């Protein structure tokens, strides 16, 4: 009896996430293949507004289905991608797009990676220049290091090369 009850519940179930959700209307792709491709590309960037972190391309929620239909309708009406995006932002806010807007408040978000990598590279170049005069071959080798280099070179000429990422097995205690 319980099993039948569950079965009935299950067959009545449509939304995979929640039992209370109304059944999602099935997707009807646009007849025009080029327009459908544009719609699919847009779906990837549009956030399902009731989900945790899902695009409407992925989400099984009923709301996502409605949003997909809304986007397809706009494209069928002849709107451009930008117009569709603007329409969505007007309805739901910036939150609805996975691409954050570029404006004063998000300057740091968009700019920081570039600033960091250029700044880091600048610092490295500055270091390298300042030091370039100081690098004299072998000039700052200690006697112990020189012995090690000689041994390594000898080993490289005669025997198997030592691992390049690790110190040689011999004499490298805590010193």
């Amino acid at each position, binding site marked *: 009896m319980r*099993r039948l009850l*569950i*079965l009935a*519940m*299950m*067959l009545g*179930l449509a*939304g*995979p*996430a*929640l*039992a209370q959700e109304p*059944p999602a209307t*099935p997707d009807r792709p646009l007849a025009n293949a080029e327009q459908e491709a544009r719609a699919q590309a847009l779906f990837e*960037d549009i*956030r399902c507004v009731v989900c*945790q*972190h*899902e*695009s409407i391309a*992925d989400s099984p929620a009923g709301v996502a289905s409605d949003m997909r239909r809304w986007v397809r309708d706009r494209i069928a009406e002849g709107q451009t991608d930008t117009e569709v995006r603007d329409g969505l932002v007007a309805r739901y806010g*910036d*939150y*609805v*797009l*996975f*691409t*954050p*807007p570029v404006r004063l*408040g*998000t300057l*740091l*978000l*968009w700019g*920081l*990676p570039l600033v*960091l*990598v250029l700044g*880091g*590279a600048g610092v*490295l170049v500055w270091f*390298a220049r300042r*030091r*370039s005069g*100081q*690098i004299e*071959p072998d000039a*700052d080798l200690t006697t112990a290091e020189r012995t090690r280099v000689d041994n390594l070179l000898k080993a490289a000429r005669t025997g*198997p*090369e030592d*691992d*390049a*990422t*690790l*110190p040689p*097995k*011999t004499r490298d*205690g*805590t*010193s």
Partner: protein
Amino acid sequence: MIVELGAFALCLALALSGLQVVASVAGRLRSSPVLAGAGEGAGLAAFLAVGLAFGVLIYAFVVSDFSVSNVALNSHTDKPMLYKVAGAWGSHEGSLVLWCLVLTGFGALLARARTGEAGLPFGLKAVAVAAQGGLGALFLAFVLFTSNPFVRLSPVPVEGASLNPLLQDPALALHPPLLYGGYVGLSVCFSLAVAALIEGRPGAGFWPAWGRWIRPWALASWALLTAGIALGSFWAYYELGWGGWWFWDPVENASFMPWLAAAALLHSAVVTERRGALIGWTVFLALVAFSLSMLGAFLVRSGVLTSVHAFAVDPERGLMLLGILGLTAGAAFTLFALRAGQLTGRTLFAPISREGALVVNNLFLSVAAATVLVGTLYPLVLEAAGGATISVGPPYFAVTFTPLMAMALIILPMGPLLGWKRGDLIGALQRLAWAAGLSLLFALIVWGLFRPREALTGAGLALGAWLVLGALAELTERIRLFGKRTPGELGRRTRALPLAAWGMTAAHAGLGLFVLGAVVETGLKVETARPLEIGQTVAAGPYQATLRAVEIIEGPNYLAESATLEVEPLGGGRPETVRAEKRFFPAGGQTTTEVGLSFHGLDDVYLVLGERRLSDSGERAWTVRMNWNPWARLIFLGPALMALGGLLSLLDRRLRTVDTTRRKRSPA
């Protein structure tokens, strides 16, 4: 009674961790090996106590003791045994006990680390054990005061609420232990860095030795994180049924940031060890890596990700985690700032050198980690500051993160072929010429075979092949495959190659395989969805699937609509039967999808059973979504190879720091 024993064991572990701190600090101050030894013993005992508590928690889940609130909320008598056990770490409270178990476990390993001539100096070890004990005490206090898993319920419910069915999956049962092993393994790097900041002496070979001491811990953590993230990604791929494997979800980012930092640490520690350079940077990274782990725990465990407002409703746990993060990271970075001036190595190297290449690698990896950090936190900060709510998703990371990593990967194969101190870039490039040529040829051929032909896909193919072939080129250089060598000598050279070298080759080649898989899957996958009546066919890419039957079946704790589909190549060929299911879990009232996967070489045919509906002709039909995901296997095989590479390096005799064997030390 047994449950109270668990709660008691947790309290005991907290006290032992406190004792660990006090005894180790006192041992250091009085230079007393007895006191320091007591600190180490306390660390070991704390681990055993947390182990007992964890065992008790698992026991409570196994016997379905619903008088324990955590069991009642996360288990159910119907659940298969594996998920009863895994349920112990499936909830907030249980996962934090696991966190403490790993934390004290690594602490116990640290307590067993070698000392003396070939191992850690007395003072450094005592301070590191104290720091590890401090971390343990903070997190155990957090568990006991905000997230006690042993709280009893009255009245006792007859049945439990069960574990979220999405989590009832073998991959996800194993995912948290691996991931936490990685997250928390970095705590030892953190403790060793703090200890070195206090104990470190300039010169006299201290810092190169320190670089060698932290490498195994960084390596183990990185390998565990790699395996854990890959497993989680694979779970998302086949359990969520969306066809994707990485969504730049904040929860994913939370685990990815420590991974990037650990990868950077792994490489900079090599420079510190071999050349006594980049000391300050390596120490900084060791502190950053575990701080990012703790930040990840805060993000995932505080509820702040759902919304800033959800966090504000129940801020106790979040604020306490934030407090732990602020206290530990704040103290460590203050210490770092005070000592930074003394952390400059005196070793010099030319820009074109092994060190130079590793520095550039670190630049890109750390900026990439910073980018993920900014992308994850920016919406939270903006919203908390009263600004607009924005979403930062895949399109943002595609234009920021991806170019950074691409740059790092282009230079990667050159690094290992450059000499220390002053490298010969022209020579390295000459030795890589065949790898570069073959990569371009490979990319051109594959690019020509597939549609659509995107320029970025071609570039990605060349990059992936460049990594794989570059890793092989480096290997052939080491064994001097090319040149007048007898087979005997080749064999001898191959056998003489240390495990660490194999590990590096495997990890770099694995990264290349991952890039190939990710690029091809992303650029060339084909998705079709349509309603199918029994006997009808859907096609995607070079395969088609025919719906043969749909039946209702009963699982241990669910009912499922189970579809039988036949997958065959379009040109004809042997059909293969695949099952795709939609499961309904009455205990939680939830439905999950069980993807039907059919493996064809490196490609996946991916089938998702959707809604039941009436077709246009009035027949019963089911929406079936079919993906052809070319080379998807490499997305998960690549990271597996990377983790294996980490393991191989870890097994290298020369990286062994923990005295596990007690046998006579090999002659050094």
